[in-house]
């Protein structure tokens, strides 16, 4: 049923409100600065409240679909679609964004350009909500580019490119490429790299439009003639993979992962927003949005699409987890970890499509998205609190902060335990375990390699999480901390406006963790109904035998083991400090591995040589030897030719009468002879 605009006004307002707020912020800023700040946060709250009105609809398994006419020339409508998937996501986005906005009141306090900050934060939230709540791909793309634009503006927020706003270690080069980056450079890099993904997504959309004549999710599902026509031409899977290309760019999956690390040049609140609620989650959401559609078409062999998704996720999870092991910057550890965890989500959403029980993998992936959103937002805001206090992004400049910042320590520890997957009481454990189980039970022929990768990543995750906590909060005070104390700065806890938001999220992740299996079951039930009713996807086989708390024994053992090994190693090196990590540098093999990881597998180097320096050299060559020489040479060449010809003609104009007479006479003679002949 398509409802009228005003009957579904609460759905429309979810994305309209943040944009409206962004539009009036500059005007309000002219009047009162503090009113501006509170009104910005107020609009985020209003949008969240609007999203909350939909929760009963989701719990009842209903949906709201509303359309208005838009581009009549192409018979396209604008619309919002609040089905259970969108409702859960929109609430997650709205409430986490709201908490981050509150946190911003403290974190960004005193910045000169707050009007711009609030404008783009609201724009960011509005764009993300547009992605979540739209009922067609074209509007999703509006939001898609909106988050790209907002991230460009916010990553490069400190556009004066001062040294303290850089990211990376100054002087660090890999293969001739500087690995430290200015904010505006980082913003541009993010925009262009995600643009590469966007281009693929557009191509996928265009292919579908050329066959279906519509972008609407509902319309695409209602009449599947387009899919049959495309499958007949072998275009269906390519179109799906191209759409996924957009998700690869936005969610920083391999091979478009490099922008995410430089994106750390933005204010930490922005990083929290990008990593927890918006931007990178957009890609996962897109896969969750189109996944069921393509699974419903699995009679047309769409399995390959899901394989691509699963493997992309697994590779990214592994790649970025290894890099997180060696990063000295606290925000970058978290950034690597985001990419890696999103890899998990992609893996789950991918494996869902290959397995018989689509709902299991789907639930696992989405559950991990939710739990990651909570703990990662909390971790970023906590890291921001630390940065705010010690004025350095390097963990080597921290250390021993536990007793100075007890609240930050406590909440970050809780969130970190969730990221590391501490068994039974953290949401991260349950969601990761669900992914392991989904992979194991998928029946996919390559499930084992995927599973092993997933477990190895879990070990690394636990290790780098403990490393981060250890380096930041344990051990003695670093020289830097001593120095700033000496200079008269007092290292102290941050204000309530900052710690309350990340405290709430840290506690939430534990609450979800303690009730983990119940929560998962509820989610599973909700998605089972949703997928069944909207897409006709049902459990094809009864779930495998489960034991205690509905756990898969192998998966659970792996979760426990991975956490144990990773956490123990991290504890020994960085918290108890029984062993010295500097030992790595003394062995040639470990040092080689360390360098390889520290230089980010040389992917950034390859990107710059192949994508920037190489093409620029070619362009410069063309510029110099074609445009400037040949094309610009045409005019002078014409001119030269004319001058030459005129000189040649001029040579006959001697001005000597005898010559003229002689030529005249010769001419007459020739004419006469011609006549005689």
């Amino acid at each position, binding site marked *: 049923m398509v409802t009228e605009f005003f009957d579904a006004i609460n759905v429309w307002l979810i994305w309209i409100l943040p944009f409206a707020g962004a539009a009036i912020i500059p005007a309000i800023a002219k009047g009162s600065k503090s009113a501006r700040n509170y009104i910005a946060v107020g609009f985020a709250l209003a949008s969240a409240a609007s999203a909350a009105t939909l929760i009963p609809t989701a719990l009842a398994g209903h949906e709201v679909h509303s359309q208005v006419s838009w581009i009549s020339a192409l018979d396209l409508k604008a619309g919002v679609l609040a089905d259970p998937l969108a409702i859960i996501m929109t609430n997650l986005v709205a409430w986490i964004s709201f908490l981050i906005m509150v946190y911003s009141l403290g974190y960004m306090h005193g910045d000169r350009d707050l009007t711009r900050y609030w404008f783009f934060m609201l724009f960011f939230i509005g764009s993300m909500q547009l992605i979540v709540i739209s009922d067609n791909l074209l509007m999703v793309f509006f939001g898609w580019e909106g988050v790209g634009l907002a991230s460009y503006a916010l990553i490069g927020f400190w556009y004066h490119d001062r040294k303290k706003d850089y990211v990376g270690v100054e002087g660090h080069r890999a293969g001739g490429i500087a690995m430290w980056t200015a904010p505006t450079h980082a913003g541009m890099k993010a925009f262009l790299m995600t643009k590469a993904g966007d281009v693929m997504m557009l191509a996928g959309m265009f292919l579908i439009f050329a066959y279906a004549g519509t972008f609407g999710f509902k319309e695409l599902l209602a*009449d599947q003639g387009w899919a049959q026509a495309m499958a007949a*031409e072998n275009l269906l899977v390519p179109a799906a993979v191209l759409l996924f290309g957009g998700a690869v760019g936005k969610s920083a999956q391999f091979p478009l992962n490099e922008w995410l690390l430089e994106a750390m040049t933005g204010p930490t609140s922005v990083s929290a927003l990008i990593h927890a609620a918006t931007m990178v989650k957009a890609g996962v959401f897109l896969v969750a949005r189109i996944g069921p559609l393509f699974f419903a078409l699995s009679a047309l062999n769409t399995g390959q699409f899901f394989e691509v998704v699963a493997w992309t996720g697994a590779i990214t999870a592994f790649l970025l987890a290894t890099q997180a092991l060696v990063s000295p910057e606290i925000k970058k550890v978290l950034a690597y970890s985001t990419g890696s965890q999103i890899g998990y989500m992609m893996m789950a959403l991918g494996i869902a499509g290959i397995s018989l029980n689509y709902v299991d993998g789907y639930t696992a992936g989405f559950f991990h998205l939710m739990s990651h959103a909570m703990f990662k937002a909390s971790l970023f805001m906590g890291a921001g609190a630390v940065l705010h206090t010690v004025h350095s992004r390097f963990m080597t400049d921290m250390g021993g902060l536990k007793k100075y910042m007890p609240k930050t320590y406590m909440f970050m520890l809780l969130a970190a335990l969730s990221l590391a997957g501490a068994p039974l009481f953290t949401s991260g454990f349950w969601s990761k375990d669900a992914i392991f189980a989904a992979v194991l039970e998928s029946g996919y022929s390559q499930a084992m390699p995927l599973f092993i990768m997933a477990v190895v990543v879990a070990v690394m995750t636990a290790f780098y999480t403990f490393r981060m906590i250890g380096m930041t909060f344990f051990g003695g005070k670093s020289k830097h901390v001593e120095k700033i104390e000496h200079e008269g700065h007092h290292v102290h806890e941050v204000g309530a406006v900052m710690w309350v938001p990340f405290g709430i999220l840290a506690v939430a992740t534990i609450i979800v963790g303690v009730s983990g299996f119940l929560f998962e079951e509820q989610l599973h039930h909700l998605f089972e109904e949703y997928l069944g009713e909207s897409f006709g996807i049902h459990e094809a086989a009864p779930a495998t035998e489960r034991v205690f708390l509905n756990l898969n024994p192998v998966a659970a053992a792996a979760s426990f083991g991975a956490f144990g090994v990773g956490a123990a190693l991290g504890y020994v090196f960085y918290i108890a400090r029984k062993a010295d990590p500097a030992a790595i540098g003394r062995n040639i093999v470990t040092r080689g591995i360390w360098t390889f990881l520290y230089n980010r597998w040389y992917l950034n180097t390859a990107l710059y040589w192949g994508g920037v320096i190489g093409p620029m050299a070619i362009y410069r060559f063309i510029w110099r030897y074609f445009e400037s020489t040949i094309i610009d040479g045409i005019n002078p060449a014409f001119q030269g030719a004319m001058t030459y010809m005129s000189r040649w003609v001029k040579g006959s104009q001697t001005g000597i009468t005898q010559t003229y007479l002689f030529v005249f006479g010769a001419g007459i003679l020739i004419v006469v002879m011609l006549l005689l002949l």
Partner: protein
Amino acid sequence: MAESFFLLAATFIPLLLAPVAYFVGKKSGAGTVTWFSFGVLAVSTGLLALPALALQGGMSAYVESYQWSQFGNFGLRLDGLSLPFAMIIYILCTVLAIYSKPYMIHKIMEDMPGASRHENPGHGGQVTLTADQQSYVNHHMGLYFALYLAFSMGMFGTVLATNVIEFYVFFELMLVPSFFLVAFYGYGARRRIALMFFFWTHVGAVVLLLSLLTMGFFAGGFDFDTIRANAHLIPQEWLALIIFGLVAGLGVKLAAFLLHIWLPYAHAEAPTPVSALLSPAMIGIGAYGLLRLWLELLTGSYEQYSLYINMWGLATIIYGGAMALMQDDIKKVLAYSSISQMGYILFGLGSESVLGITGATMLYVTHGLGKAVLFMMAGSIILQTGTRSMSKLGGLAGKMPYTAVIAMIGALTIMGVPPTSGFMAEWTMFNGVLQTAANDGDWFRSAMFGFGIMGTILTSAYILWMIKRIFFGKIPEEMAHVKEASPYVTATMAAFAALSLIIGVYPDLFLAPVSDYVQGMFADYPGVLPIPEGSGLIEPAEGSSVGLEEGLSVGAEAGGNH
């Protein structure tokens, strides 16, 4: 005979009042002549808007036709094709007239014989002048606006013409005033550059004329209608030659790859308000010519050559973009960017699909707005800082916030990012190209699509890099006291930026008449793919709960959803 004279008046009022503008400027000064010219153009735009509204209301074409000479009738025709062109040309001309005031006063005073160079740019008009200097400025402002009005009228007439000879006359009429504008008020070696500009575009025009005459002779008349009706009378071997002449002649105007020799100089060295007309409004008329004179009049030959146009467009996109990356001068970046954008239009024109050709037309609209904003930004920078070399600029976002924000909207328009009009144009255009490729199963066209859409990354790169070098980073010391430009500059820029956003969100204003018209143009040619049609939502039958399951083959249970 026509019963109303809206278009006739809209076309000739600016021309007739051009000499008046000169005397107004000379007698009453810069301010008066600015508002006089603005008024003249605003009235003309209003006269255009009346029939344009009728078109929005569903009328297919509005034509005024007059007896002329043995060449046929002199007509002015507003339809789905000429509407976006005519509208954008007059909107640009009208608003840019206001922008011209501070800029041209500054420019004329800079060139004044015996004038000392400005110590403090950015205060054009605020300096006290002697009587002689005042009359010098007034004289030149009058002359500038007289030429400006004539130039506007030339462009406008070209897109409304209904007769090939009439088309050619207007086509040349717009060239003459623009030549003088560059020669009198340009930068650098302006006379030389004006001559080069004139020479190349005139040669192009003459080649075009040969084709037009040949068409007319074979078809037995020079009116568009006659030629379209009798296109089959043109022998095949001549047809190829005619098309070659059309494409080459208009290609010069478009500054397509290899014929772009004149453009970087003319656009960079013209006075900025004129650059903002040359680039967005004038060169795109080449695309209009191709649409009208080739695609519409000789529709039968279109499919045969479309692929070459497509390829040429791709080459132009990449080449223009690559060369734009090499520039340090803001206006040169924008000049090469215009070349690249004309490549997009050609790319769409060669798409063999209604969607693609519609998109190409929309690109004219969007490029007009976006590039005008960017050229105006360049002008604003020149006015306020006295330089246009990006290596000397930086960090100006804090000093010139309005210029920076509006320029960013212009940049997004050129990059094709929603919600600007650029996206609406680009997606329809690229979708058309891919539609043909997919429909024909043609790997070559698919590859071209791939490269073309990757070209948008190149476009984004040079635009963002330009913005970064002007507005971000450290502020050079000598720029520490730069101020925001006057409202004459920022408000006019904002007008275009706003229009771009409006069209981006509500594209029907232009998209609907254009797509209808293009659809009609190719109604008899199934090879040119129509706009894909959706089957739409299957509305649930009375009593049943959800409509979606009906289309599903997998077991669906009705009920319980609502």
